[in-house]
């Protein structure tokens, strides 16, 4: 087990009153899982992802990454945790406009003390993986939307994370590009054994997960696991 969430609650303070964004959320994620999180807009998907990354403080509950208490960690500990264990993929790509593709991929390594060539080669290898090594010196604005998201995925992988958090990674892409990106994420999940948590709107995309969480008004109203299903089928038969 890589991630355990117990009785997680998140209340936002707002001038219009409190918002219960997450209510009593419980689930476990195993190493190598591909978890998809669905739910209508405002159901708390993004909040859940950000809380898991330690980017938002939870109101109560426990979040464990291996044996690290994310809910209790300091800002510095959380920075180190993200630096070493987490990769992010965002709907808006969030590439740095003045950096080339390969520089964007190398960005997370800027705070690692490693030889220059090693950083460069790691980034180049990942650009090859996402099929963009021939665009390494292009600026984001010189790339298509699908290509930009591929660069962002390469960037999410460069620090060899055990966990990738993706918030609607295909939200800004048309369907055929979406399928490419989803297949790429699946390939990474399978080949690199990276645990994947992906928020998505689309039911088709949710099919990629072996664990599927559905949120409604901040609560998990349905959790589906292929393994449990298989085990149940085995028991029944």
């Amino acid at each position, binding site marked *: 087990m890589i991630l355990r969430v117990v009785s997680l609650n998140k209340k936002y303070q707002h001038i219009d009153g409190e918002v219960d964004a997450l209510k009593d959320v419980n689930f476990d994620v195993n190493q190598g899982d591909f978890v998809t999180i669905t739910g209508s807009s405002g159901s708390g998907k993004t909040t859940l992802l950000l809380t898991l990354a330690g980017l938002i403080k939870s109101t109560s509950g426990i979040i464990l990454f291996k044996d690290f208490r994310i809910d209790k960690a300091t800002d510095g500990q959380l*920075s*180190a945790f993200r630096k070493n264990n987490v990769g992010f993929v965002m709907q808006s790509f969030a590439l740095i406009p003045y950096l080339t593709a390969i520089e964007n991929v190398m960005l997370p390594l*800027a705070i690692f003390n490693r030889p220059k060539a090693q950083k460069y080669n790691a980034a180049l290898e990942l650009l090859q993986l996402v099929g963009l090594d021939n665009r390494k010196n292009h600026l984001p604005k010189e790339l298509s939307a699908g290509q930009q998201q591929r660069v962002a995925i390469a960037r999410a992988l460069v620090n060899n994370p055990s966990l990738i958090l993706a918030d609607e990674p295909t939200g800004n892409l048309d369907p055929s590009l979406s399928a490419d990106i989803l297949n790429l994420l699946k390939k990474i999940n399978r080949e690199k054994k990276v645990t994947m948590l992906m928020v998505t709107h689309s039911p088709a995309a949710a099919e990629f997960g072996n664990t599927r969480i559905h949120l409604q008004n901040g609560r998990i109203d349905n959790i589906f696991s292929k393994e449990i299903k298989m085990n149940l089928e085995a028991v029944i038969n």
Partner: protein
Amino acid sequence: MNVQKLVWLEFKQHKSQLISGLLAITLGIAVIVGIRSISVVSEKAVAINLDNLGANILVLPQASNVDNYYSADIDAPTFPEEYVERIATSTIAGVDNMSPKLTRRITINGQKYVLTGILPKNELASKPIWQNSGLFGAELQASCGESPVNEDLGYKDEKLQRKSVDSLAMDDCMMGSSAAQRLTAKEGESVVIEGKTFKVAKVLSETGTIDDDRIFAHLHAVQDLLGIKDQVSAIEIMGCCNAISDGLLGKLRNILPDTRITTIGQIVSTQIQTNKMMNKVSFVFLIIIIFVGGISIGNFMWANVNERRKEIGMFRMIGFSKTIIYQMLLAKAFILGILGGVIGYIIGTAAAMWLGPEFAGLTVNAIPALIFISLLISIAVSLIGAIIPAYLAGKIDPFNNMQEG
């Protein structure tokens, strides 16, 4: 890719915006450097033995500018050379020595020099009418001895202006060290001044004053050359201390109409006041740039941070700690500080070197040591100005990136 590289790439990206952030600090540094460069020269000019000068009287035209002792006679209006005779033939006692001068700025090969016509001792003495007046016999030390204090400090008034020259031919000239250097003229060689050829009779040793840029020639040759016949711009008089306190200045004023008669000591002390004021002005400027420069750098950095909110949020997201964000912004401020210091130094020095000769008649040299002070002030001000924006940048929510649709 490391953090320094990242700062540098961002810096290069936004270099067109730099001018607004750097303007105040650069101009502030330029003003301080400019004032300092000029006042160093003018402080040098007064670093002379005041006691020795106490007995020196300067006769200048009424309209001349006496703010600066070394340039008081440059381009001043003129009065008749005949005044020398008037003093010599008067019954005024206590005048020991006289030296009439005509000084004008000239250009040789596009460069500026100061040409001063002087009358050598032998010529003054040879005028029969003065022979009886006993003007040139006595040495001055008797009446105006050197102060032992100054001797201890090692002051020696070796500036040529104060010394009389025994003889000077009509086509001879003497050159200040820096003038000789600029003209690459050596003793014995000849040089063309305003169309006339002069032989360089002597290259004078360096004094650190405007004298270094002067070329001295015979008064009458200079008068001919410049077409200012029988006119001089100053007469220096050695007077005895006792005579000065007995009202020598007033007596001279009576016989020399339309002149301004003052002791060099007075001029020098006026100049010391001016220098003190310049130092005060640069202190005030220092305070101003610390405020205006710091605020304008802070404002620039804050605009930069705001523009890059998403970017900084991204950095935080991928594990950059607050400390690294602070470091990145302070590193940027540091680069700004270096730029402000260097550019300010260059502008200030250039302005002083151009304005000094133009307005104050002082030859201003670049003072390399000022670059360190410029950098120090500029970097300190930039860093101070960037503290608040850097602190606020550390507070940027890392998740802005995720929440917008």
